[in-house]
């Protein structure tokens, strides 16, 4: 099981690219990266999830953390999530607060 995460920030738009499987063992890295984006003052967070093959509740917690840390005015989008991943996000009711794009 592998997990990879990359962050880039351009003009205060933070883009996180997730690859692999995001379980509780990997969630700390996601949390830390979200924290880094928030601390950098990002006004928008775009999470590319097309290559995210698995997402557990531990990853969802980091999305809550992102919303808490960045505030309601920051748009958070999850882009291209595979159907099972998008289903988990919807089942948790997170799609009310986080934009699911191309999912």
């Amino acid at each position, binding site marked *: *099981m592998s997990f990879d995460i990359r962050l880039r920030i351009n003009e205060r738009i933070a883009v996180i690219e997730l690859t692999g*499987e995001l*379980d*509780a*063992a990997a969630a700390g890295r996601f949390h830390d990266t979200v924290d880094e984006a928030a601390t950098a003052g990002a006004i928008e967070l775009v999470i590319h999830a097309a290559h995210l093959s*698995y997402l*557990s*509740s*531990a990853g*969802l*917690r980091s*999305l*809550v953390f992102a*919303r*808490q840390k960045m*505030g*309601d005015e920051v748009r958070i989008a999850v882009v291209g999530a595979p*159907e*099972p991943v*998008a*289903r*988990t996000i919807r*089942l*948790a*009711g*997170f799609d*009310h*607060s*986080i934009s699911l794009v191309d999912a």
Partner: protein
Amino acid sequence: MAIDYGPASTGVAHGTPPPGGFRVATDPAATVIRIPAALGALDRVATFVLGLGERAALPASALYRLRLAADELTTNIVMHGYRGAPGEITVDGGIDPDQVWVRFQDDAPAFDPRQGLRPPALDQPLAERRIGGLGVYLAFTAVDGFAYDLVAGRNVSTLVMLRRAEPRPPGGTDVSDEPTE
């Protein structure tokens, strides 16, 4: 949401009901792993469950959900059962004619995972949500059956996924589950 799952009709005449009320066969294909109670061992649970589900020819969606439930339940045992203390979790599973089952046994203090279940509070802003219990909620909604028993001081939890052609999830585009002629 149905959580408790009564004795399942497996069609297996000589099955041995494990704790929790399920009737499962004494399956020669059943296997077992023992893992340390640590998040670093989650990948071993995933490998075990995915292998079991693939042998049972579970559709991709059911396979994903069984792995999700097993992953969440293991995480729950590590975080809320052992709470960082050293320990071991025994995971076994089997394939019956109409279902796949995965059973978890641990020696953490008695703890029924259902006590921690909390459906998401959809009416609350995300930033104000209490997130505890979400993993258990995802686990229980992912599978067809769950049972818990305390047996001689051991926590025993069993997940069941039925082996049946499942309806396509709303919006699903995966065509790999389509029956072929």
